[in-house]
């Protein structure tokens, strides 16, 4: 046997062992643990939110005693560093090296979109309870990317715009962080508010991580508007609310916020300056619903803080996926079946205290709560619902087809028809 022949033979032998080994591996995996890859920003700009995401997942797994459908759950946590390139690399590691059956998580839209684009190629089920980019359940839907217990950015500001109009507000100005999440939330409010006969007087877009809001607040104060809508997250939200109060605008012009502006992750550190801000969301930790109350109490007992949207969303997202896996009897290996089952599963027993189902585009339909920040008996602030819009679609009252023909919300398109 010459050398070339030898090489050929051994290559063939190698390949044969490889092929033969694969089914054996598959058979073993069936009885092994369910491997769930959790991507969360544990470092970088949104690290505090990332930690609460992990808490939310672990809180659920504690509740489920680390088992779903009789199979042990192995949770593999990776840090996406708030950076899309890192997120992509970590997703690859979880799928290709960690052999995770599914991925869940990510906080920033850019990290989520990067991972979504990757799993489009691999077919791995990817659940996004936090990533709010509208188009993931609208114009650029990917079948295996499912927004369990999540929300699309403009879904809650549509009813909020309607509510604001019904309060008799005629003129509103918005101020927002200048990125897609902000464009979409403001767009939702602006479109419905303007179509209801209101006027969006001016819109301010400021870069992420703005330390000083005085140039904006000065202009906002002079606009003579009936209300101001602020779309802020994280440290920006904290600073904006503080400076809004110290500028003397609190109590003078009503402040409406995006859900994330009055999230626990923000108002936990604030005092009375956050009192009275109104925002729209699916979850209100101060709701009088007994299921919500129990969740908030248990979470507070365990982590000694009131749950934020991050903790709540990841907890409910895990619950949703787990209920689908229960239905399947734990067979997570069949991805298509898993995806179909999740899409058909209706979430019961979540902290919302109400059954939630997905629409035809993979986005949950919620009752949207208009929430107000009030002081609790022990001096802490939380969001209490003051009005409810039942069963709100991500397309509001529009026809989905027509709605998706309009361009996605951006700085230049806010859903307002040019006159």
């Amino acid at each position: 046997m010459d050398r070339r022949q030898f090489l050929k033979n051994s290559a063939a032998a190698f390949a044969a062992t490889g092929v033969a080994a694969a089914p054996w591996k598959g058979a073993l995996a069936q009885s092994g643990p369910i491997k769930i890859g959790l991507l969360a920003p544990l470092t970088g700009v949104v690290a505090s939110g990332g930690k609460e995401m992990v808490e939310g997942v672990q809180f659920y797994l504690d509740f489920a005693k680390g088992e779903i459908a009789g199979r042990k759950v192995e949770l593999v946590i990776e840090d996406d560093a708030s950076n899309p390139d890192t997120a992509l690399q970590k997703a690859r590691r979880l799928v290709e090296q960690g052999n995770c059956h599914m991925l869940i998580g990510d906080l920033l839209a850019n990290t989520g979109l990067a991972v979504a684009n990757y799993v489009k190629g691999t077919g791995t089920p990817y659940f996004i309870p936090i990533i709010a980019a509208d188009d993931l359940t609208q114009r650029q839907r990917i079948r295996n990317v499912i927004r369990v217990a999540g929300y699309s950015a403009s879904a809650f500001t549509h009813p909020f715009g309607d509510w604001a109009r019904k309060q008799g507000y005629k003129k509103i100005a918005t101020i927002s962080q200048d990125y897609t999440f902000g464009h979409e939330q403001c767009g939702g409010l602006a479109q419905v508010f303007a179509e209801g006969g209101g006027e969006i007087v001016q819109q301010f877009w400021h870069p992420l991580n703005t330390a000083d809001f005085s140039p904006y607040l000065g202009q906002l104060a002079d606009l003579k508007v009936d209300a101001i809508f602020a779309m802020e997250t994280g440290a920006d939200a904290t600073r904006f609310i503080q400076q809004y109060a110290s500028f003397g605008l609190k109590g003078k012009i009503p402040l409406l916020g995006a859900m994330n502006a009055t999230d626990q992750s923000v108002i936990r550190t604030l005092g009375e300056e956050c009192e009275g801000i109104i925002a729209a969301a699916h979850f209100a930790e101060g709701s009088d619903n007994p299921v919500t109350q129990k969740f908030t109490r248990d979470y507070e007992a365990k982590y000694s803080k009131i749950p934020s949207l991050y903790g709540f969303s990841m907890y409910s997202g895990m619950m949703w996926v787990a209920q689908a896996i229960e239905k399947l009897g734990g067979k997570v290996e069949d991805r298509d079946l898993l995806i179909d089952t999740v899409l058909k599963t209706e979430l019961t027993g979540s902290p919302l205290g109400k059954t939630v189902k997905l629409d035809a585009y993979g986005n949950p339909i919620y009752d949207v709560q208009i929430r107000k920040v009030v002081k609790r008996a022990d001096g802490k602030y939380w969001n209490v619902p003051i009005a409810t819009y039942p069963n709100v679609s991500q397309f509001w009252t529009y026809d989905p087809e027509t709605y998706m023909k309009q361009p996605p919300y951006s700085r230049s398109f806010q859903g307002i028809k040019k006159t």
Partner: protein
Amino acid sequence: MTGRSVIAAVAVLAVAAALPLLLSNYQVGLATEILIFGVLAMSIDILAGFAGRTSLGHGAIFGVSGYVVVYASAQAGLSPAAAFVFGVIAATLVAVIFGTIAVRTSGVYFLLLTLALGMIVWGICLRWTQVTGGENGLRGDVRPVLLVSHRAFYWAVLVAATVVSYAMWRFVRSPFGLTLLGIRDSESRMRSLGYNVSLHLFIGFVVSGFFAGVAGALYAMFNNFVSPSTVALAQSVEGVLMMIAGGVGTLFGGFVGAAAIIALENAVSAYTERWQTVLGVTFILIMIFAPEGIIGTLRAILTRKGR
């Protein structure tokens, strides 16, 4: 090229080509990334190691190429090959602009100027939302159908990296490359010998930008995705660090540096989320104990033994 170095090069290539047969898919992905970043580090080394100008703007050139590749294929609907060519052309054009402005300076001023230019590109990518997708970046299926599998793509990148590395090696050893060395060692002497120093530096910068563009186009195909973090300062710094870890002025050290950093990043981040701290400490140690980089230090040890 001596007989021995040819044999060495062939041996390294053979090992590199055989790697995918031994590694898992994920590791093949890492190896691909190492090759791509190796090319980026080498392109920076052309300027830093041979012309004495360390650029902090190459991440931007690299990223622009990536943006153009994704935009051209996903939005404009061009074929992957055409997108690739356009990406490299765009990167070269950016290098022309950077070069025109930056070659007048040296030392810390060159560093700051390239940094500032890179920040401008980053700012444009972040704020020009209609075209660049802003914070979200651009996505698309950029890879040619033929190269969708990890292995096929790795081999394609290996071929590209080999060709490009050879070209860079020829470039720095050419008479023109030697003039760059002369400029590094003494600008005034080169000028008094009658060389047009600015022009030579400019050409050196553009050539280096071209190679960074090739790396960027490959990276866009690897990720099928590009975002402002690809053009950010951190990307430039990473390229420079890879070059330094490998060894300034060693050219092929770029691959070693890229391999060391990417491998370390992955190994350490599996154990702790504080991997950046570990990376930082490692750099400090490299600077103290092996200031010539990994290749430089190995070379020094070998020559000491040879004597």
